[in-house]
């Protein structure tokens, strides 16, 4: 990789030069991309690696003796090792490649489901009436719906942490909420709508005290701050490639090795078996057990390149840059008359995702006017409808930042909001 900025010499102009899309115009204005929590843009380094893989090394993985197949397998497994190191996993075998975070979470849910229906399976993975699964009110739908469905299938009960007026996780009921009936706690590391970064330490300690497992949805944290699975002490994390400068179609389930070992398969098919007879099959060890069929090979390779890119900058530098932008944006947004922020109003314990509302103006209209100025934000319920309900609004407008975001872009957002207020005021 070409020489990239180090933490002490973080150079935003050089970073931006790596992202060709940032040079385009939208509706006659320079693109101001403030929707990275939705999907991030991709640097040339990632695009080049993916193109080179298809042009020079394309073969199927894990089954071919020929040179191309071997090269493809090496590239795919090298990506797994890069991802494992990126989150400080003890072994690459603990990294399961999936389609996205949604699939990662569903994989765990269906492993619980299958274990519950299989006599002799690991009791930690068995759920039935009287057992409880705990989530929170600030979850993305992908960390709500799979557990609702799992509870319906098994007769278990779903419970949840509330959210405070300030947008923090309400842990005041922790002792009663996570109890001896709890089998799994699944909460978000960084909220995709409020921007809140949760410290899961107390919840993890309590969950493990009562013998429950913990899944942390890291979709919004792994791209933006250093994440260390060993330091977090959780049992599973889920994240997705396209929010961290990689392509769509590739996500990650990390699980503690002995837990993955105990989990029954979810999808059956090629590559996940040990031996197959017409009557019965035995299964490969993880991660292969959970990767049936031809995987998204070039997407995994692209994710590996994205990890290389982020490591070259340094995740501490990424976090520091975003903290600076976030502090600037919070100040600037709070100066807009009638603007209300949903989530923490200080840059402490939060990331660079800010949801807000303008009094009496619907977010769809806000987003439409901003788009006319080339400012791309997300509007709606952000797949976290319970959060909107919690704050009594049908939807919010959300600006989200990344390593390539500048203060000038925040200024463009604020100017756009002035125009919104003129049109609808």
């Amino acid at each position: 990789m070409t020489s990239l900025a180090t933490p002490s010499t973080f150079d935003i102009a050089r970073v931006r030069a790596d992202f060709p899309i940032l040079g385009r115009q939208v509706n006659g204005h320079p693109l101001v991309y403030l929707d990275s929590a939705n999907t991030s843009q991709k640097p040339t380094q990632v695009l080049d690696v993916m193109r080179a893989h298809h042009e020079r090394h394309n073969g199927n993985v894990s089954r071919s003796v020929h040179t191309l197949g071997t090269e493809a397998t090496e590239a795919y497994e090298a990506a797994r090792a890069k991802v494992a190191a990126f989150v400080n996993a003890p072994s690459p075998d603990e990294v399961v490649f999936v389609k996205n975070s949604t699939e990662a979470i569903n994989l765990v849910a269906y492993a619980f489901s299958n274990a519950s229906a299989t006599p002799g399976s690991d009791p930690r993975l068995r759920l039935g009436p009287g057992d409880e699964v705990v989530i929170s009110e600030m979850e993305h739908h992908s960390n709500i719906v799979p557990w609702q469905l799992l509870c319906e299938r098994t007769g278990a009960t779903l419970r949840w942490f509330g959210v405070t007026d300030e947008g923090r996780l309400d842990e005041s009921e922790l002792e009663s909420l996570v109890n001896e009936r709890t089998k799994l706690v699944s909460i978000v590391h960084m909220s995709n709508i409020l921007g809140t970064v949760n410290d899961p330490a107390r919840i993890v300690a309590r969950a493990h005290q009562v013998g429950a497992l913990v899944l942390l949805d890291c979709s919004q944290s792994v791209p933006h701050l250093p994440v260390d699975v060993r330091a977090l002490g959780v049992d599973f994390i889920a994240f997705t490639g396209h929010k961290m400068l990689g392509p769509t179609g590739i996500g990650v389930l990390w699980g503690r090795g002995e837990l993955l070992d105990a989990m029954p398969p979810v999808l059956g098919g090629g590559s996940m078996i040990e031996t197959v007879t017409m009557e019965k099959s035995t299964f490969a060890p993880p991660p292969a057990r959970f990767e049936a069929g031809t995987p998204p090979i070039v997407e995994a390779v692209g994710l590996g390149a994205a990890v290389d890119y982020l490591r070259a900058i340094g995740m501490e530098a990424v976090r520091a840059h975003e903290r600076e932008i976030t502090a600037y944006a919070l100040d600037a947004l709070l100066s807009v008359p009638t603007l209300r922020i949903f989530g923490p109003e200080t840059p402490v314990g939060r990331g660079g995702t800010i949801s807000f509302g303008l009094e009496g103006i619907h977010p769809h209209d806000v987003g439409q006017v901003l788009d006319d100025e080339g400012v791309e934000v997300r509007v709606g319920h952000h797949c976290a409808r319970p959060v909107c309900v919690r704050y009594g609004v049908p939807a919010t407008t959300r600006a989200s930042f990344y390593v390539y975001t500048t203060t000038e872009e925040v200024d463009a957002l604020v100017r756009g909001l002035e125009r919104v207020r003129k049109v609808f005021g």
Partner: protein
Amino acid sequence: MEFDQLYQEIILEHYKRPHGRGLREPFGGEAHHVNPTCGDEVTVRVSVDGQKLGDVSYEGMGCSISQASASVLHDLLTDRPVGEAFQVHDAFVALMHGRGQVEPDEELLGDGVAFSGVARYPARVKCALLPWMAFKDAAVRAGVTVGPEVKA
């Protein structure tokens, strides 16, 4: 993009000062529709008097396009003969699906022609159609059958 065509003055007027807003009795049928992608919602009530519509009342929550569209719907369809009402309905739906290529009939659609710009923004077509889809369901529930001379 033709931004001013999307937010024409007529639309902003209906949004800021909606006509006939509020759910009223009596009514023959009611339907509540939600746009799952943005959470906009609208409830439409239809009262029927033989082959003629009576009051078309509504309540809703959402963006300027969906709420102005409900206001225009109320103006256009209240006290309208059933056959005509569905002609207007079908013309509005056709305009919205026309990707900006359909020439609207001002006599038939009245203020509804202001929405022709919306058809160029695929993400917003659903907003404009929300009250009209709710109307159609409410009318069916009110027992309104569309005459043979009107294409469904």
